[in-house]
């Protein structure tokens, strides 16, 4: 019973002193220059209002109660936007925690009874701590979602299959090859082999920082899968250090390999019965007679 009286008292306290609390709060909050006073004012007002309402209707001890839906929604939205703007967790949580001072100040100013003051402070403290934790949790969740999304994006970006010529595709690998990525790489490569009807696939590992036995194994898997689809694989872009590592590891790469992508392309062209020649007129814009001129 005592609790609910405290609750009602707090609700009234917030409702009555909203403006004063807000002013106090905004002053504490505005230590961070990235948020304008106006913005803080707006957010604070909305939050305070929702909190007052929640306290008036519900049981203050549990923020998961449906009465706190509005409060949680505001906090979640706020926390998410802060996370996306690149604020740190404490910078985000301070929004809630800085309200403590303002509210306690208000409690002290309006409550005469010591016992009741202690009750109020305790209830508020509990409540704000929970809300603060909730803010941090949402913040964390948003960051994790962000990281996950970026990881997916990088994954997609880092495994493009490029068509170099009719029947020749290249797969420039960038970054470390782990099992999960190999799977994506393989799938992309095989699908593009089907789509373009490529006979030769060049896997360029210039962007792969290190090649260990596992990476080599993944490469070989990709090569055999492509072979099963009827495409020949060439590996290019093996840097001197990597070549040495591969030999030292005793890994046998039973694939045609070339030092550079250019060499691999030349070989691929040759295998598909094409050749690249330097034009006789030394690269002047004028084409050989076979090409119709305007």
């Amino acid at each position, binding site marked *: 019973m005592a609790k609910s009286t405290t609750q009602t008292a707090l609700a009234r306290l917030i409702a009555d002193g909203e403006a004063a609390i807000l002013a106090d709060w905004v002053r504490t909050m505005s230590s961070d220059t990235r948020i304008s006073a106006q913005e803080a004012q707006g957010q604070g007002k909305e939050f305070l209002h929702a909190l007052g309402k929640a306290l008036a209707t519900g049981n203050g001890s549990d923020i998961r109660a449906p009465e706190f839906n509005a409060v949680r929604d505001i906090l979640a939205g706020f926390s998410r936007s802060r996370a996306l703007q690149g604020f740190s967790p404490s910078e985000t949580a301070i929004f809630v925690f800085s309200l403590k001072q303002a509210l306690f100040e208000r409690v002290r100013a309006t409550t005469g009874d010591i016992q009741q003051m202690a009750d109020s402070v305790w209830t508020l403290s509990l409540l704000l701590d929970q809300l603060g934790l909730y803010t941090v949790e949402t913040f964390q969740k948003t960051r994790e979602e962000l990281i996950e999304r970026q990881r997916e994006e990088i994954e997609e970006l880092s495994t493009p299959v490029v068509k170099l010529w009719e029947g020749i595709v290249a797969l420039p690998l960038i970054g470390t090859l782990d099992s999960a990525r190999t*799977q994506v790489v*393989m*799938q992309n490569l*095989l*699908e593009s*082999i*089907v789509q373009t*009807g*490529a*006979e030769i696939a060049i896997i360029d590992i210039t962007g792969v920082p290190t090649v260990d036995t596992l990476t080599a194994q993944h490469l070989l*898997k*990709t090569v*055999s*899968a*492509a*072979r*099963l*689809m*009827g*495409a020949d694989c060439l590996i290019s872009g093996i840097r001197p250090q990597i070549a040495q590592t591969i030999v030292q590891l005793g890994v046998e790469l039973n694939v045609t390999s070339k030092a550079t992508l250019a060499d691999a392309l030349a070989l691929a062209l040759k295998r598909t019965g094409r050749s690249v020649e330097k034009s006789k007129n030394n690269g002047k814009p004028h084409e050989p007679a076979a090409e119709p001129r305007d």
Partner: protein
Amino acid sequence: MDSIPILKIGNALLVTIQVDMHDQLANRLQEDLTTRIVQHRARGVLIDISALEIVDSFIGRMLANIASVSRLLDADTVVVGMRPEVAITLVELGLGLPGVKTALNAERGLAMIGGVDGRDSTDDADDD
């Protein structure tokens, strides 16, 4: 007992596998195929597995067997039309099908063997 049809296209034999393989069927196919290779003096065998969604070690071994037997009879075996998922699964199973030639589709496979009337035409001229 049902069997898998073997089509003759020029100098090549085309086998399209569309049903689940089992021991008897595989043996029957191998027997039929060897007979037909000799009978038609085929130079190549195309095995189209584009309809297969699942290729396990059993089919892998069957393909390898057919390839070795055909090689003895001087016919190249080309497995054509493998799906990407199947290729990935086979590789993950460690079945790279060494010794079996592969091509993207039947057309490519046929070109690999030497076309519908490829190299054999000259041989025929010599024989006659």
